[in-house]
């Protein structure tokens, strides 16, 4: 018969060993489908949607109680119109920036009419500080893994798996494991934008020390990753200084205010079979 204190120790040891095995298995095969994750996410996303719906219902009813129904609706409509117009503006600017040679090569019409679907953010990440959210659109709405997510300000992030039928997880571009192909709009110098866990939360890497980079330069998506639409704003250069090696140390402030995001647009164009830059699911 074991002493109770010894049994507690054994239990603790067993839990530790179990976790080490669990983590090791995942590190070796990250691409494998995790049943626990898929089932829990699918179930919990519905609970989150119901909770979010309930809270929004109460908030909406309370706000509209004070005879603000018409003003609120009109305001909402105008905001939606403004958001759509800003998205169109980004598309137009991207088109203007392209050379005539590229315009001949690409299907211009296809590039200007991005099919999108609006989605509402229904929950954040249960782990504090992790920059992913859950949206109320899923595989039944046509969403697929690695589809780009944008907002009127610019690029937000991408859809990461597994998808539920009516919910999906979005990894923000400012996530510590996120990355995307990017270029400086003024000089067309290309590099890679990565999320970092500090302020400002983005860094532009792989830009040569010889390249011309100025504070305030606009950084846009280059599209080389096959996920993010070309020309969409990512952010502006906050600082650029000569690095120790071949490349400059460039920090970028995002164009999108991630803390204030409520609704986003998912670009319904599947990724072009390119391995995404950064960690596919890296999170806390």
């Amino acid at each position, binding site marked *: 018969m074991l002493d109770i204190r010894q049994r507690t120790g054994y239990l603790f040891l067993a839990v530790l060993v179990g976790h080490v095995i669990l983590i090791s298995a995942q590190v070796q095969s990250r691409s494998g489908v995790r049943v626990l994750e898929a089932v829990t996410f699918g179930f919990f996303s519905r609970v989150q949607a119901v909770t979010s719906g309930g809270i929004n219902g109460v908030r909406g009813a309370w706000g509209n109680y004070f005879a603000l129904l018409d003003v609120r609706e009109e305001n909402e409509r105008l905001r939606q119109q403004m958001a759509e117009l800003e998205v169109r503006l980004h598309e137009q600017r991207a088109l203007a920036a392209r050379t005539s040679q590229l315009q001949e090569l690409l299907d211009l019409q296809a590039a200007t009419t991005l099919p999108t679907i609006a989605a509402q953010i229904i929950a*954040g990440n249960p782990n504090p500080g992790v920059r992913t959210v859950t949206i109320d659109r899923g595989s039944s709405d046509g969403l697929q893994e690695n589809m780009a997510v944008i907002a009127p300000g610019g690029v937000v992030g991408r859809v990461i798996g597994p998808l539920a039928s009516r919910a999906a997880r979005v*990894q923000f571009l400012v996530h510590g494991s996120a990355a995307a192909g990017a270029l400086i709009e003024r000089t067309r110098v290309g590099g890679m934008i990565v999320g970092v866990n500090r302020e400002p939360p983005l860094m532009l890497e792989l830009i040569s020390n010889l390249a011309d980079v100025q504070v305030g330069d606009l950084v846009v998506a280059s599209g080389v990753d096959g996920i993010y639409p070309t020309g969409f704003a990512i952010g502006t250069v906050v600082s650029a200084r000569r690095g120790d090696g071949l490349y400059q140390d460039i920090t970028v402030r995002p164009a999108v205010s991630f803390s204030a995001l409520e609704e986003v647009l998912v670009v319904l164009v599947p990724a072009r079979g390119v391995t995404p830059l950064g960690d596919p699911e890296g999170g*806390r």
Partner: protein
Amino acid sequence: MRAAGVLAGLVLALLLQTTIAGMTMAGGALVNLVLVVVVFVALAYGAVAGLIAGMAGGLVQDALAGGIIGIGSLSKSVAGFLVGVLGAQFIVSQPLPRFVMFLGATAVHELCYQGLFALIEFRPFSLQYSTLAVQALINGVVGILAFQVVEGAPGLVERRRMRRASIRRRF
């Protein structure tokens, strides 16, 4: 009954945490409600309960968060177990020692969490001390309030009942 209460607490904490994080990303980083429940359970019911609550809460949190399942769970299991062991060795029935436990558990959890990530993802270990300090303080305040509510509510009902009975006897 006790297990159901712990389970309900964990589910409620997860729902609140995701709701807060959904409304404001910065706000979600300032409190870890699941950890608060784990420490609460460890202080109230001991090391084994803290260990199991940490494991269960952490696993669900990890599964919902995406990424590697087990890192948050392991961190919370360690924090819950240590708090349970220390809670059995020292008198932690007053708010101040409990507050210290919440602070310590948050620090242990974050160290363990970031350390494991640095180890697995081959990254340099980095800890945002200001965020950790704020989160530890908020976790501590929330935990102490939770103890006040859970321990105070039954007494309050009892006291009110006795007062009513004495008034009735007088008239």
